[in-house]
């Protein structure tokens, strides 16, 4: 059906090492002793916890609600009790903690009520919402919320829907096994995405080293009488990169600056499609995923694992060999070393590899770059990695952006072939995160500056207004000077009593508990001052006064009220009248 494959430049062919983990079918990982479900498992907004400690949750119950459009919900992977909502080590290269819901399974594994839906009977908007609330994200490893990718661009008609079953990372076989065993559900799921996007053509790309998966998918497509094309693509890393697969199947190149929908194409991983199907047709949110457990272990295999299962418990199923010295999450090319095996399996965990010195020998020492250009030859994005390396190394981040560092997909081909063994990708990651962090700082600084300037402007304005008010008041007084004299004589005694009352009151209140320390003394002084100030400003705020005092204050207020329109003009001068009006507030 499809005549032409386009290929992409660059790429490498590392040992695939996939055979050991495809010997056994997908196994159901047993229920772990405790689940640590991180709330933030997706790119975009962090979901908010919707459960409380001690609450009993059912399997599939919403425990974290999507925060904003680009976010995805999180669900309880089994029924049990919420033990805590606390910071727990994340499945992240840093080993830093993230807010997680800790669930102790009750062993009953009891589902919430599930309703099967047909996406064709629902509005597209509703389907996207369902996908978001079912926590469907890209399971290829990026964990980008899928519903946010399902809106076609307005200007460009959607041509091709690319389904990514290429799985180019060495060691990894989770998509392979999923396609072999659950091809029909994948094919049914594709219809959801195709209908939402309105794609004219569906291309399923699978690397040609997975003949079983290709034939399983082909059979499923035939059985369901769909017109999808299952295409075997040449095995070359990173053919499974979304942009590379789009290029291979459609000839279109998606730059970093564009969304693929702007070119009329979109790409989803097979596992994502599968979970979308489960979410709609079975009402099952994403609570588990297929994880390849392989490497230096006795029994490499793919497991269906509940999200939140501590990695240590999963790895134990494979019985790691004695010389295992590290564990990787993701493939050996783009994955990272797990700093702490207490970290849970999350939606992005497609593969766990036990590493040994024999399997992943230590990189030889880094030598200077000899500009041989081997990295540029293998770069699938046709960048000049050595240039990026010099600029990243020199922290010349402006230049790295000129040389398109953000088009780098960190596939690792350049590091793989570098004869000088330079950790190029590491330099690029460093440069990228520095650029992001500087961007954040810049934004914070700009915001601070704006707020500072606003504040200054406000203060100036307030001062100007005050001065204006004073000037107006003075002018008003100047004109109403004649009726004033009568009250002028009364003013001095009215002002003075207010303050002694307040001072005495505060001294009474504080003195019984007055300790000797200087610190307390300063606090008392400060409180006195503050109270005096408040009292002076708002004399009425004195509920606990005696009746006499209240009467006295009322009398004072009455006098003050009588005074207000024409205050203290006795001395006659404008300046004097202004100061005397200020005095009560001092």
């Amino acid at each position, binding site marked *: 059906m499809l005549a032409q494959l386009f290929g992409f430049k660059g790429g490498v062919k*590392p040992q695939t090492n996939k055979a050991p983990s495809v010997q056994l079918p997908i196994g159901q990982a047993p229920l772990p002793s405790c689940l640590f479900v991180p709330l933030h498992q997706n790119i975009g907004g962090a979901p908010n916890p919707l459960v409380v400690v001690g609450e009993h949750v059912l399997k599939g119950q919403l425990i974290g609600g999507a925060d904003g459009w680009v976010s995805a919900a999180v669900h309880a992977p089994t029924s049990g009790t919420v033990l805590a909502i606390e910071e727990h080590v994340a499945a992240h290269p840093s080993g830093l903690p993230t807010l997680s819901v800790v669930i102790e399974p009750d062993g009953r594994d009891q589902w919430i009520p599930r309703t099967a839906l047909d996406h064709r009977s629902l509005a597209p908007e509703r389907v996207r919402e369902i996908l978001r609330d079912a926590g469907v994200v890209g399971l290829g490893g990026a964990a980008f919320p899928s519903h946010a990718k399902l809106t076609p661009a307005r200007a460009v008609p959607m041509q091709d829907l690319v389904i990514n079953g290429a799985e180019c990372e060495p060691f990894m076989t989770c998509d392979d096994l999923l396609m072999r065993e659950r091809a029909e559900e994948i094919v049914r799921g594709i219809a959801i995405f195709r209908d939402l996007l309105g794609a004219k053509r569906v291309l399923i790309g699978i690397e040609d080293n997975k003949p079983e998966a290709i034939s399983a998918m082909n059979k499923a497509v035939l059985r369901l009488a769909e017109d999808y094309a299952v295409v075997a693509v040449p095995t070359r890393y990173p053919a499974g990169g979304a942009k590379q697969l789009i290029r291979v199947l459609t000839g279109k190149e998606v730059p970093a600056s564009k969304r693929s929908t702007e070119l009329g194409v979109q790409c989803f991983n097979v596992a994502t499609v599968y979970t979308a199907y489960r979410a709609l047709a079975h009402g099952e949110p994403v609570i588990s995923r297929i994880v390849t457990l392989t490497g230096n272990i006795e029994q490499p295999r793919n497991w269906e694992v509940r999200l939140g299962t501590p990695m240590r418990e999963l790895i134990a199923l494979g019985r790691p060999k004695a010389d295992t010295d590290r564990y990787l999450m993701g493939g050996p090319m783009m994955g990272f070393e797990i700093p702490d095996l207490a970290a849970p399996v999350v939606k992005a965990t497609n593969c766990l590899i036990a590493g040994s010195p024999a399997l992943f020998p230590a990189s030889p020492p880094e030598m200077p770059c000899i500009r041989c250009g081997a990295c540029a030859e293998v770069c699938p994005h046709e960048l000049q990695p050595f240039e990026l390396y010099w600029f990243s190394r020199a922290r010349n981040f402006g230049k790295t952006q000129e040389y398109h560092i953000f088009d780098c997909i960190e596939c690792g081909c350049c590091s793989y072939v570098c004869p000088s063994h330079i950790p190029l990708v590491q330099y690029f990651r460093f440069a990228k995160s520095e650029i992001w962090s500087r961007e954040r700082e810049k934004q914070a600084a700009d915001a601070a500056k704006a707020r500072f300037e606003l504040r200054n402007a406000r203060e100036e304005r307030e001062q100007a207004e005050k001065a204006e008010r004073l000037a107006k008041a003075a002018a008003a007084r100047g004109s109403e000077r004649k009726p004033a004299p009568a009250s002028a004589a009364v003013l001095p005694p009215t002002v003075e009593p207010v303050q002694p009352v307040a001072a005495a009151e505060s001294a009474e209140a504080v003195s019984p508990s007055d300790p000797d320390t200087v610190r307390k003394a300063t606090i008392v002084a400060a409180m006195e001052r503050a109270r005096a100030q408040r009292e002076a400003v708002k004399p009425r705020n004195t509920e606990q006064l005696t009746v006499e005092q209240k009467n006295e204050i009322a009398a004072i207020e009455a006098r003050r009220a009588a005074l207000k329109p024409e205050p203290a003009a006795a001395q006659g001068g404008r300046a004097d009248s202004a100061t005397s009006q200020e005095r009560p507030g001092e």
Partner: protein
Amino acid sequence: MMNWTTPPYLLDGQASVRRVMLQVLVGLLPGIGAYVWLVGPSILLQLALATISALAGEALMLRLRGKPLSLFLGDGSAIVTAWLIALTFPPLAPWWLVVVGTLFAIVVAKHLYGGLGQNPFNPAMVAFAACIVSFPALMSQWPALGLKLTFAEQVSIIAGLAPRIDVMSGATPLDAIKTALKLGEGTVDVPTLLATQDVFGNFAGRGWEWVTTGYLLGGLWLWQRRIITWYAPLGFICGLSLLAGALWLWNPQGFASPLFHLFSGGAMLGAFFIVTDPVSGCTTSRGKLIFGFLAGLLAYTIRVFGGYPDGVAFAVLLMNLCVPLIDMYTQPPIFGMKNQR
């Protein structure tokens, strides 16, 4: 203990600087073989001298710069430089000339600029240029053709124990043609020269044509091994033959054919082993083409119209200067941006 972990965890176990350099050395072997056949084992002595002094200079500089000897001494880059120097210097040059040239290349042209990967100029060509400027007479004394010397005699000449004068009357074919044309002042023409003089062979210098063919074969092998790309060599050959061909077509009496030029002097060595030097050359594909092409034009110009017998070294050095500029203007479009230029 390296607790340095960074993705990718898989590396191409084959790739290393040493491996690249070793293959370059292997690529030189056919040419060296022909050279030995032509002038005898003296060239091997020169190669050994250059190698030893290069390694000594490298070790000294690495020690001074506080760099690990074990790592850098074994990378083979100094040996490549040394061999290129030995192959471009006259085979019976006094021992100290090669030693001085090599040390100059390693110490000044390489390490004073920052060592491996940092030198803006090709160290071997710097050495050649420095020596031909400083010792023009010694650098142009080539063994007369047909001179049959025993290895012992060659050693004593190189060691400075035997008189040099009478045996060193020879010239390179390029020099011969230039000198003859200059002296003849219109009375001689190139085809006659090539046909009559002993120094010329079937299509270039007698014997030398096979040495350069050896370099060509070695270079093609390197290309096949993907150690070098075809851009710079093709550019160089095109540049050289374009100018040579144009002038030859215009005046076959006064100018030698492109074939003669390609297989004379340092043209083939330059095309496959010198303009392809990654460190001092261009990095982009188009840049490499331009770099090679202009180097070819310059090499011909200096060779034919300049005062030196060959122009490859100066051409390459001049082009080394232009590398950052060429690279800057030849950045290839990246994935997804090809139609947006």
